[in-house]
């Protein structure tokens, strides 16, 4: 009996409410001026009514309706969803949504109904993610709802991470057109909370598996960027200590607390992404951060081996980039790369010194050739090949490699024959006098052990001692001076460019009067007349080769 009355009361209340509602909405439609105030009071009233008694639960449906009106009026939707959120947080906290075994049938119906409304509200929120203006508040609401749900949706003591809802959130985030949303999410949640990161990896992996068929390029890029943003790899289990939803403390071995589980999730997500195939740009990006933020996530970096080897073999700048990943594997996982140095040598091509990734490559090269146990023949090949390349290189590259040569010469004294080779016999001397010397270096030989570079000389560097840029010329001269310094710090010379060289020159204020040519040339643009030619005057090169026009 009481239940029946209650129900009827509820129904009547619902009717009245609806009526009121209708009135209100009519009113609102009539007077647009005090709409905001009206709305607020209305929402407040609805909220308080719900919290007052169960009779007014139907207000929730009204609120849901209001919240769905995204298109016309954002403020309504936001305010309504905020109210809803508050309502549900209260209800959840009161335990009204928990299914209880001993509850009466009617109570169960109410709970069931409420749960359905909650699901509706979630959907409403997730849909808001697609709206540029609503997305950010919706995200915050969704996340706070998530937190409360974790604690109160079940009648367990320990909070349980609502995976289902979270997966949905991630799906919506990924599919949302709002870029800002993802940034916000990455910044405020992924970077902050270890468990969020954990479940995000999981959700992304799931997503990629679900949608592997119809994943278009844009989505891939989005996921790629999202994963790329997650870059600070925790170093031990103890680092995992900030949680959005505190995992059950009873279980010590909860996956959220384990670093290896984290890594596995990340690895799965990345692998799922990589298996879908990558564009060239994405590949470059992946390779760029491979050794710093991707490979450390992998529990089994060996899985990256094929990918890296493929990239390394691809040639061009991808090879340069893949090198650091390969090196990571060699270093960390003891990867044995067959003919590594041959491959490395093959990377020294015409574009290498002009590449954007030059300094990155040279750094690695410095590491690879750092061992003093390498055969001098091979080191000589590297030196000679780079010297050859330097003949056509920009000054910033020359500046970087010459001090490096110096270090190599110091480390491998056998190679110094390339700078100083005195003919030993008289016959040899006579032969050289007569026929000159051919450069025996085989520039096109692939194997650095077979190039005969060590029998050659570094004429190229000597030519660069007459480089137009004063500093480059000076640096090139260190090769022919006495080797008194122990070693140069290559790092000091790596990051230069035309721009930085220019800045260095222009940074100095002109204080001392510059030297001025003491003769004012007779002709600058115009040609020398015949009469002047008789006097021995000649056209300058420019005037000779260029037609400046005549008066």
């Amino acid at each position, binding site marked *: 009996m009481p239940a029946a009355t209650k129900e009827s009361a509820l129904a009547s209340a619902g009717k009245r409410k609806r009526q009121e509602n209708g009135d209100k909405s009519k009113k609102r439609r009539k007077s647009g001026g005090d709409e905001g105030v009206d709305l607020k009071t209305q929402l407040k009233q609805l909220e308080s009514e719900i919290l007052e008694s169960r009779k007014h639960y139907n207000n929730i449906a009204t609120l849901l309706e209001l919240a769905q009106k995204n298109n016309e009026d954002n403020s309504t939707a936001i305010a309504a969803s905020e109210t809803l959120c508050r309502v549900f947080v209260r209800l959840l906290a009161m335990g009204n949504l928990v299914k209880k075994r001993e509850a009466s049938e009617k109570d169960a119906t109410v709970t069931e109904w409420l749960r359905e409304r909650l699901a509706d509200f979630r959907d409403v929120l997730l849909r808001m993610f697609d709206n540029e203006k609503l997305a950010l508040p919706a995200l915050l609401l969704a996340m706070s709802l998530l937190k409360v749900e974790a604690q109160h949706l079940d009648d367990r003591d320990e909070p349980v991470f609502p995976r289902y809802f979270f997966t949905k959130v991630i799906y919506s985030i990924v599919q949302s057109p709002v870029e800002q949303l993802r940034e916000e999410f990455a910044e405020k949640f992924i970077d902050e909370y270890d468990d969020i990161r954990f479940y995000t990896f999981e959700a992304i992996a799931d997503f990629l598996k679900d949608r592997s068929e119809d994943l278009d390029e844009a989505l891939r890029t989005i996921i790629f960027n999202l994963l790329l943003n997650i870059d600070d790899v925790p170093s031990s289990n103890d680092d995992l200590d900030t949680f959005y939803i505190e995992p059950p403390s009873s279980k010590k071995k909860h996956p959220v607390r384990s670093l290896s589980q984290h890594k596995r999730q990340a690895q799965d997500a990345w692998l799922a992404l990589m298996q879908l195939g990558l564009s060239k740009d994405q590949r470059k990006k992946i390779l760029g951060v491979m050794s710093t933020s991707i490979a450390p996530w992998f529990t089994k970096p060996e899985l990256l081996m094929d990918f890296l080897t493929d990239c390394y073999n691809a040639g061009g700048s991808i090879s340069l980039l893949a090198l650091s990943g390969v090196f990571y594997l060699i270093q960390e996982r003891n990867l044995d790369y067959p003919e590594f140095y041959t491959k490395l040598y093959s990377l020294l091509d*015409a*574009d290498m010194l*002009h590449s954007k990734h030059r300094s990155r490559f040279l750094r690695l090269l410095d590491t690879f050739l750092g061992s003093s146990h390498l055969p001098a023949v091979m080191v000589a090949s590297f030196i000679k090949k780079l010297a050859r390349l*330097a*003949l*056509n290189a*920009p*000054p910033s590259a020359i500046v970087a490699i010459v001090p490096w040569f110096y270090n190599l010469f110091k480390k491998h004294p056998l190679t*110094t024959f*390339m*700078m*100083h*080779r005195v*003919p030993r016999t008289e016959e040899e001397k006579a032969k050289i006098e007569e026929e*000159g*010397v051919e*450069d025996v270096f085989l520039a*096109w030989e692939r194997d650095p052990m077979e190039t005969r570079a060590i029998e050659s*000389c*570094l*004429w*190229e560097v*000597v*030519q660069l001692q*007459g*480089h*137009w*840029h*004063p500093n480059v*010329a000076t640096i090139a001269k260190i090769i022919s001076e*006495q080797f008194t310094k122990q070693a140069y710090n290559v790092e000091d010379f790596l990051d230069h460019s*035309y*721009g930085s*060289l220019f800045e260095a*020159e*222009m940074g100095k204020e002109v204080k001392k*009067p*510059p*030297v*001025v*040519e003491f003769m*004012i*040339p*007779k*002709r*600058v*643009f*115009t040609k020398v007349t015949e009469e002047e030619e008789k*006097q*021995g*005057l000649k056209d*300058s*090169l*420019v005037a000779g*080769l*260029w*037609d*400046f*026009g005549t*008066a």
Partner: protein
Amino acid sequence: MAGSQLKRLKASLKDQGIIGPQKSKKQKRQNAQDAKASNEKRIQRHEALASIREQFNPFQFKTNARGPKFEVTTNKPVSSREAMGISGRPGLTKAKGEERRRETLLVEMQRRNKVGGLIDRRFGEDDPNMSLEDKMIERYTREQQRSHKKHSAFDLEDDEEMGGLTHMGKPLFDDDDAPKYLKDDFEEDVGSGDESDGSQTDRRALKRQRLEEALEAMGEQGEGQPERKKTKKEVYDEIIAKSKLHKELRQEAKEEDNELRAEIDEAMRDLRPLLFDRIKPPTKDDKPSLVIAGKDQATLDREYDIQVKRMASDKRAAPTEKTKTEEEQAAEGANRLKKLEEDRLKRMRGEKVSDDEQESEDEKKQGGDDDFDAMDVEEEDEFGLGQGIAGKAKKYRPTATELGFDDEDDFLIDDDLVASGSELEFDSDDEGEESDEDDESGSGSGSGSEEEDSDDDEFTKGLLTESEAKQGIFRLPTNNTKGSDENGVPYTFPCPQSHDELLEVFKGIDVKQLPVATQRIRALYHPKLASDNKERLGNFAQALVRHVNYLGNQYQPTWAAALEGLTRHIHSLAKSFPIEVAKGYRAIIQEMEQSRPLALTVGDLITLTGVGTTFPTSDHFHQVVTPAMIVIARYLGQKIPQSLSDYATGTFLSILALQYQTFSKRYVPEVMNFTLNTLCALSPSPKAFTPKNTTGFFPLHDPPVGTRLPKTLPPDAPPARKLTFSDCLPSSQPPTLQAKLSLLTTTTALLTSASTLWSQTPAFTETFSPALQILSSSYPAPLGKFTSPLQQHLTRLLQISRLSRRPLELHHHRPLAIRTYIPKFEDSFDPNKHYDPDRERAELAKLKAEHKRERKGALRELRKDNAFMARENLRVKKEKDAAYEKKYKRLVAEIQGTEGQAANAYEREKAARRKKR
């Protein structure tokens, strides 16, 4: 040396001769008689006894039981103490310490908890070392010193007689030789030198001393003794009166002396000739003239001094410059140019041109500039020289070459300075002649040789030489006040200070006439005309630099001469305003680099050309040229040409880069990269180039569409021409065949000059073989007429380079000496000392040791102090107790005595009573 202690003592006493067999009476007497000897003997005896005492006290020395720690061989004399290993004398130190404590600590202890008291500050009162006599002497000297400090002893105005208040009113030295005594010691010494006097003074000193002693004794006895006959006042009066009398006497004597001196001074005039002018006849000296001469002497001296000073500050009379013969002038010019050339080479090698030299030169120039009168100096100036040679350049050229200076250009250029000026002005001159009579009338072109005549026409003409400018200037205001010449170029301008102003000023003037306008501005605002013209012209120069860039951006083929003129003007301005012009150029270069590094405009190209002519491009480093070169290289290295215009721009920059390096022959990799890419782009073969088939390692760019030449030339193919700036402008039209052919010919010509320029470089083969490879492999025969000359040229040079290549021998350095460390020997090594090479550590260790020692010492001292204090306290207490005991006993005894007496009395009384009874 066995035996008991006593026996040994006896033996040693006997050894020292202190005890011995008894002496006879006679001997004793003898000994007593020579007292001196006995005295000595006594001292000796004393010493001997002390040593024996030391020897027999085993606690006198602290010795190391095991002997010295190290057996040390040193060259230092070993003291007996060290030999014995004695490390201290505990007894002695203890006694000393005790003594010191008694002096300080004990006093303090006794004074503790006591307030006030008297401190005896009398000299030597507590000093037991001073005898009474010493004390008195000390006190006397102190007192004397004190009074001496206050007043001068010879102050006549001072009424108070020093030391006059003591000694019972009697003057201290009022005895027979008082006046003498009162005289100065100085006078005494001077006055008498014999012995008797000396003894007298001695005696006197003694007497004084005695008196003093008496005085002191009296003072100590106290003043209040009543046996005085006179009262104090009387005594004082007496003393004062007496001293005043003495003073008067002395004054009188002094006055007398003065008078006498004056007299002698008067007579001096007569005496002087006798003394000094013995040679001169006395008749010559007539007094009045002498006086006048004396007066004159002063003024004359002063005048003389002034004259000397003036002469010293006067310019040294320099011999006038010899008029030089033409040969001499030529030689001088050649030398100067040679020096400039040497400087250039030095700068090219990156060495420092000795600054002072240059500075002094600058100064000289500066001085010359400022000096208005020194015309002749002016003529020795740079341009004056050129003028001198101008007419006869041909004649003297061989001399210059003989001097080993074969850059014939120089002379022509100097010649050019005048000639070109006239040329530039020629049309305007001719036209100007008609309109402007008084100015142009006399000028003509022939009268240039005569300086006076040439004033006017040179002003209008050149103004490129400073002397000319200066001469011309003064006529300026009267000559050309207003109006403009035929070409509409006004005669007067405001001096533009910025580019905007310059645009305003030059508005309406044909570009071709700009050099004329510039010249007029330079004349109008010549630095010698007004003090602020220097600044103005500097700004003008900057604006002009910008204007050339501005004009270049709207380049017209007909402007070549005008731009050339402007560039040359800038160059000429740069000589006087190097910093301003450099700043102007640098600003433009900065703009290029920042806003359009890969899209240079024609104006930029012209500006860069201007940089190349204005500044020495051969320098190792140059504030303007190096940035300009970076801009060029950046374009060549990083620009990926998208159209033929880009290729044209790049080609121009390549030419320019080569021109920059003409003298210094530096290698520019970017030029090679660009030209080789151009060749690849133009080649008709469609196959893609790879590093392998070009045999070069330059980065290949994919050529834009439509740059390739056709494989065969159509018969009506237009002839190749030279590239122009219009080729550098981007156009929407597809490139014409003619333009492509022109690009090819220019590139080949460029490569030809590049290969010639760099033919001596060691890696010539590697640098240029790609070019040959490209030409031979991908240019078909129909294009051969364009490429074959270069091919042949390259083949020849490559052959030569192969033959002349030698293995590198870069390290024929003098071998570096291996670093040696000579062991350092200490001359006076002491194992007890630490020889730590690390100075800081050694010092620290030393400080630590000292600290430790001090600390221990202080602790020990404190302990001893405590012990001393306890001892003293105990002693005091004992004394006190003893006194108490004594008193107590005394009292007890007294009481007992009294008691006894009383008992006795009682007994007696009792007995008496008994008796009575």
